[in-house]
């Protein structure tokens, strides 16, 4: 679409882009929203899981008799199907590594469940669970990815399944991936300057507000009904069908409201299968709600060790880049193979490199399994690359912003949205706009040089830029499945129902889709309802992940709305005798009701409600449409963060008094919610830079924080800069392939923040930190030159 057409459409948007109150807002702020953990069913039992105290052990025997005497229903590995599965089903089966069962005979991390009980109350279930006697045979464990690859390391798996084929595991390497473009050796030959550095990121816990829950009701016909903390109801149904050998038509998975995810429920969570197995045995509904401690032992972000090398010309042109990464995935391979692919894609898509090499190794250890978290390898790659850009800029005496503008991958160039098999051409790009506009807002030119800064409190300013993909669609099918289904129905009073299997993680995805439908249908946002959803009444949607909700889910919703509108206009054309192609719909300014009209003809108008009601009474049918739709692009939503830090050089404390966050999300569907995403991403990114990590006791294999929030800390509103000091703006762009020009935003919000914070610290102190998180201990150590783990010698 040309600029003129784009401006015309933007001018005409009525609902999209307006600040609207979210449909679920009242229920959430008044505490009346129902989450899976709130659900109660008649005769319902409560479940608890017996978890391993050992990081690696074989179960010799399990005696549940004492628990059963207490009236509990118990399951052990003997009671669950002997099916190896992978909880995440976003990749095609041949690229899916399957290494777990519902309850295993061999545990590979502290906290892995081996038995479960259901009883009348949760306290009784807990007591019964503790009455179970397990005889363990302890096995040697390993907690370090480098040690895990050694010849004498304990073997965590002999083999797993890749698709349906046996896949041997050697040296605990879960998978390896190499991706090359050009010839990197030639590239480095051509370079005037080569910069090489090591980086490391933390094993962060998602800390979604709701600990994961599942409630399963067994049905009389042998089927099941499920409410759970999920990001994909359809993938959950398919996996349960495979594990429990049930036809999909007898499995009904409901969409429950969830209390956040950050990626932690892309996979079908471990409590789901345990809860189903218990309910099938108990023949009663069973609810399993993880404690916070169990949840923390259930998943974490993929940490990364990265060694990064760039070759550049004297003028700053990048000629070659090489990124090698080692990822400690913990006890299970949930999605390490696509992660490595994505990391290569983020690397390729940040800065133009004629020659590139990427090598990624994912290694099993006896720790909590890692899974996708907001950004999926992007915060890690961007932390390394954006730190590197500042180092190169300093060496070449180029302004860091100019270096970025010279090399970024932008309009007309290729973007790898989900690894090497998911590519599209960039058709909207606000990179330069955000850098140029954001710099004066933070005071970039006045940031000064670290060597000139003195005194106890020192301030510094840093920048980080990157992007995230909007979904995983592409012209050709790749390793990743991506499409959505939506149904739009025009009701007999002129209101509209939208039905989709999409999820909302709290960011307002379903709200956004309802707005897009309102825009397309020409009715007010208030008149569009979001239908409850389950697997039996919606078509397939892969998963609400990969920042695809608005772009892909919204894309299918708009397509369904267009089709339903065509039916509606056909009905209207019969009633007012105007060719349907000539009709338009716009909301009545007072009632919000859609009015169908012929421009310039006052007598040719009729409301949407009148048409729908008449069509019903005359027996013409309902204006309804279902569309299953794949987006054939994955446009990047670019993001830029400027951050100011203030360091107390006496205590090593760092605070962020000011920040500027900008995103290029194409058309912004709801500015307030988009700003909220950027502010939330800023908070989490600062946490990843300065605070969040999980360490393990090398003897017990337990987390040093014990899985408790007492010692796993998160920044809250109290720690953040005042709202007025966090400036948010949106690039003025329009994505031609997106619904009304929209792209994604969610994961982008977090991806560049840690880099910006570390660049700001460098500007404040003249010290380059390459391992995150950096704590006040480490900052003092660096300032005073004390030896400290995690601080590289200057």
């Amino acid at each position, binding site marked *: 679409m040309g600029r003129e057409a784009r401006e015309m459409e933007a001018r005409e948007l009525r609902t999209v882009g307006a600040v609207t109150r979210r449909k679920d807002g009242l229920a959430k702020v008044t505490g009346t929203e129902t989450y899976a953990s709130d659900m109660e069913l008649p005769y319902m039992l409560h479940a*608890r899981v017996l*978890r*391993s*105290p050992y990081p690696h052990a074989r179960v010799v025997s399990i005696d549940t008799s004492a628990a059963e005497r207490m009236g509990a229903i118990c399951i052990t590995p003997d009671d669950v199907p002997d099916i190896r599965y992978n909880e995440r089903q976003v990749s095609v089966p041949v690229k899916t590594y399957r290494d777990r069962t519902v309850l295993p005979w061999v545990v590979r991390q*502290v*906290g892995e469940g081996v038995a479960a009980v259901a009883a009348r109350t*949760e*306290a009784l279930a*807990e*007591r019964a669970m*503790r009455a179970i006697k397990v005889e363990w045979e302890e096995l040697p464990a390993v907690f370090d990815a480098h040690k895990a690859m050694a010849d004498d390391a304990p073997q965590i798996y002999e083999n797993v399944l890749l698709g349906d084929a046996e896949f041997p595991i050697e040296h605990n390497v879960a998978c390896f991936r190499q991706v090359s473009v050009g010839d990197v050796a030639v590239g480095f030959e051509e370079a005037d300057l080569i910069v090489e550095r090591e980086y490391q990121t933390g094993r962060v816990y998602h800390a979604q507000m709701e600990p994961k829950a599942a409630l399963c009701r067994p049905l009389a016909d042998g089927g099941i009904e499920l409410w759970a903390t999920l990001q994909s109801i359809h993938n959950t149904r398919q996996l349960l069908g495979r594990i429990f050998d049930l036809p999909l038509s007898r499995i009904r998975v409901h969409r429950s409201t969830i209390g956040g995810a950050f990626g932690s429920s892309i996979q079908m969570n471990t409590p789901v299968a345990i809860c189903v197995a218990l309910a099938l045995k108990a023949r009663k509904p069973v609810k399993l709600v993880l*404690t*916070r*401690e*169990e949840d923390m*032992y259930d998943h974490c972000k993929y940490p990364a060790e990265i060694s990064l090398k760039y070759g550049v010309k004297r003028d700053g042109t990048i000629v070659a880049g090489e990124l090698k990464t080692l990822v400690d995935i913990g006890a299970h391979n949930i999605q390490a193979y696509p992660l490595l692919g994505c990391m290569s894609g983020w690397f390729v898509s940040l800065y133009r490199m004629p020659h590139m090499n990427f090598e990624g190794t994912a290694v099993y250890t006896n720790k909590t399994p890692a899974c996708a978290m907001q950004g999926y390898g992007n915060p890690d790659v961007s932390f390394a690359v954006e730190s590197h850009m500042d180092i190169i800029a300093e060496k070449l005496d180029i302004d860091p912003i100019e270096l970025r503008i010279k090399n970024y991958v932008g309009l007309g160039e290729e973007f790898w949205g989900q690894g090497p098999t998911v590519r599209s051409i960039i058709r909207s790009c606000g990179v330069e706009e955000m850098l140029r506009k954001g710099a004066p807002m933070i005071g970039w030119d006045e940031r000064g040089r670290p060597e000139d800064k003195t005194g106890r409190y020192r301030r510094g300013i840093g920048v980080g830029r990157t992007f995230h993909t909007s979904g995983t669609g592409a012209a050709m099918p790749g390793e990743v499945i991506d499409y959505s289904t939506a149904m739009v129905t025009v009701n007999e009073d002129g209101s509209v129902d939208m039905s989709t299997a999409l999820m909302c993680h709290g960011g307002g995805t379903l709200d956004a889709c309802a707005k897009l439908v309102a825009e397309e249908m020409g009715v007010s946002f208030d008149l569009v309802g979001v239908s409850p959803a389950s697997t039996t009444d919606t078509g397939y949607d892969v998963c609400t992940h990969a920042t695809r909700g608005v772009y892909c889910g919204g894309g299918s919703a708009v397509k369904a709305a267009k089709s339903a509108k065509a039916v509606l206009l056909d009905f209207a054309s019969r009633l007012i005798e105007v060719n349907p192609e000539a009709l338009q719909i716009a909301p009545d300014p007072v009632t919000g009701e859609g009015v169908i009209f012929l421009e310039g003809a006052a007598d040719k108008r009729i409301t949407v409600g009148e048409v729908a009601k008449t069509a019903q009474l005359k027996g013409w049918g309902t204006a309804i449409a279902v569309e299953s739709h794949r987006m054939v692009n994955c446009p990047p939503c670019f993001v830029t963060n400027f951050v100011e830090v203030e360091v107390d050089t*006496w*205590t*090593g*404390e760092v605070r962020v008094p000011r920040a500027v966050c900008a995103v290029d999300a194409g058309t912004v569907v709801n500015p307030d919610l988009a700003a909220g995403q950027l502010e939330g991403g800023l908070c989490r990114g600062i946490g990843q830079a300065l*605070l969040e990590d999980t360490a393990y006791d090398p003897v017990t294999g*337990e987390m*040093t*924080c*014990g*899985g*408790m*929030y*007492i*010692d796993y*800390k*998160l*920044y*809250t509103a*109290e*720690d953040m800069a005042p709202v007025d000091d966090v400036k948010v703006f949106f690039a003025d762009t329009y994505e031609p392939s997106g619904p009304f020009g929209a792209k994604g935003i969610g994961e982008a919000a977090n991806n560049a923040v840690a880099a910006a914070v570390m660049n700001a610290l460098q500007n404040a102190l003249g010290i380059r930190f390459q391992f995150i998180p950096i*704590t*006040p*201990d480490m900052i*003092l150590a660096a300032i005073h030159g*004390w030896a400290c783990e995690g601080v590289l010698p200057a």
Partner: protein
Amino acid sequence: MTVNTRVLINDFTYHVPSTLAEALGFLDQYGEDAAVLAGGTDLIIQMKLGRRSPKFLVDVSKLEELKHLEAGEKILIGAGRRYMDVLPFLQGLGRYHGLAEAIDSIGKLQVLSVATVGGNLGNGSPAADTPPPLMTYDASVRVRSAHQERVVPLREFHTGPGAIVLAPNEIIVAVEFDAFPDGRASAFRKLTRVASDISKVTCAVAVERAGETCTHCRIALGAVGPTPLRARSAEAALEGREVDASAVEECARLIVEEISPIDDIRCSEKYRREAAGVLFRDAFASAWERAKC
């Protein structure tokens, strides 16, 4: 892995006495099997974690006898008073900045709304926020059993991490200290990982001055030893001395030597030593300035 902070599994009898005498009667009767419940911010978590499994809970949160707030020759704060009530009381008095800053530093509405001063002392944590400022006020703890009342100087109250001098049948009734003479002032500083956190190090200072001479000095620190502690050699080094930069530096050095911090998950021993000196300098500067008028 049986750690959990949600499911409470042990059975207990829950008593809500309507008088202090009744509460003390329960404690006398049940002894070690009973636990006193005030705000519950520490006790309930300890029970869920299985670190304590009392058979009887005696809820004292309704007892009027524990709710004194008096400002006369002595300042008296009832043990059952919630932080939320104590903070405006202190702020109204206008001069006990150290204790007010300690309570304010807790900052979290959820905690301020239920947690009590008595509970904070009774929990016996070396990292607790209120003991250091109270120690700089030479505060005492009023303790009662069914048989007697005694007054324990706060400096003798803590006996180790999580350990205090209370007998199983005793309850903290109030904490009290002499009203400040004119010219005395105090301050409190603490370091935490995030705003909502247990302290890494705390430091409280109370001083009086005559011109540039320090005529009275109390320094107490938290989370740098097995109990909250007074830095006596540092106090002695300042008291009666003219205050200048070198005096403060020397005092900070003495504090760093006097404390016995450990490495833990919140920070390292080395960090604590460094930070204790910094917090002292900050708290002292603030109190010294306040004492000017």
